[in-house]
């Protein structure tokens, strides 16, 4: 699964992109955030408040209960500030 980070999620995690294979019981965006939280200090800091995290699955905005699967591109980021 290709995972991308933007904004302060990226700076806390320490990089913008990685290929990860979460365990089988990670079936939704919420599961992924929860699992990532345990991947190290940077991750713990980035994902300490799951409600502050927005997600896109295959470049479409997705809610936390959206299902994700191997081969998906999942992006995690703070609320967007365009314009």
């Amino acid at each position, binding site marked *: 699964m290709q995972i991308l980070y933007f904004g302060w999620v990226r700076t806390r995690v320490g990089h913008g992109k990685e290929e990860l294979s979460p365990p089988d019981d990670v079936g939704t965006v919420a599961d992924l955030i929860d699992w990532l939280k345990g991947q190290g200090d940077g991750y713990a800091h980035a994902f300490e408040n799951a409600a502050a995290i927005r997600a896109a699955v295959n470049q*479409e905005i997705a809610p936390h209960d959206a299902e994700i699967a191997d081969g998906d591109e999942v992006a995690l*980021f703070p609320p*967007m*500030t365009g314009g």
Partner: protein
Amino acid sequence: MIRVQDEDFDIGAEITRMTEGSTEIGGLASFVGLVRDYAGDEQISSMTLEHYPGMTEKQLERLESEARERWDLQDVLIIHRYGKLYPGDRIVLVITASPHRQASLESCHFLIDWLKTKAPFWKLEEKESGADWVDARETDSVAAGRWVRVSDT
């Protein structure tokens, strides 16, 4: 048309290109967003716009389609820059052209309000006290929410 680029843009040239030869446009509205030199009480020295290549283009195209569906528009242009910008630099340009002034004014306002909350950009401000990511503002969500149609909820 949408463009995501690091280069600056020329508003006059874009408006001319859009209106030249047309005798059917009655109103053309535009909005330019610029980098200000302060944030709260602090001077900012630069602002770096990060974005999500691929998704950005898709989202902007979606916004353009939404505007064209809601209003009678002859033309739409959205240019959004990324990269390191300085106070006074242009960030974003929205132009809408319509036979009718209300359609051009409303759709331009709609697009810039939705860009704020639906375009995957994040802003890093460099200040004396260090670099800070700009927080999404509640007022921007409220402004964007005004354009949600009852049928969409």
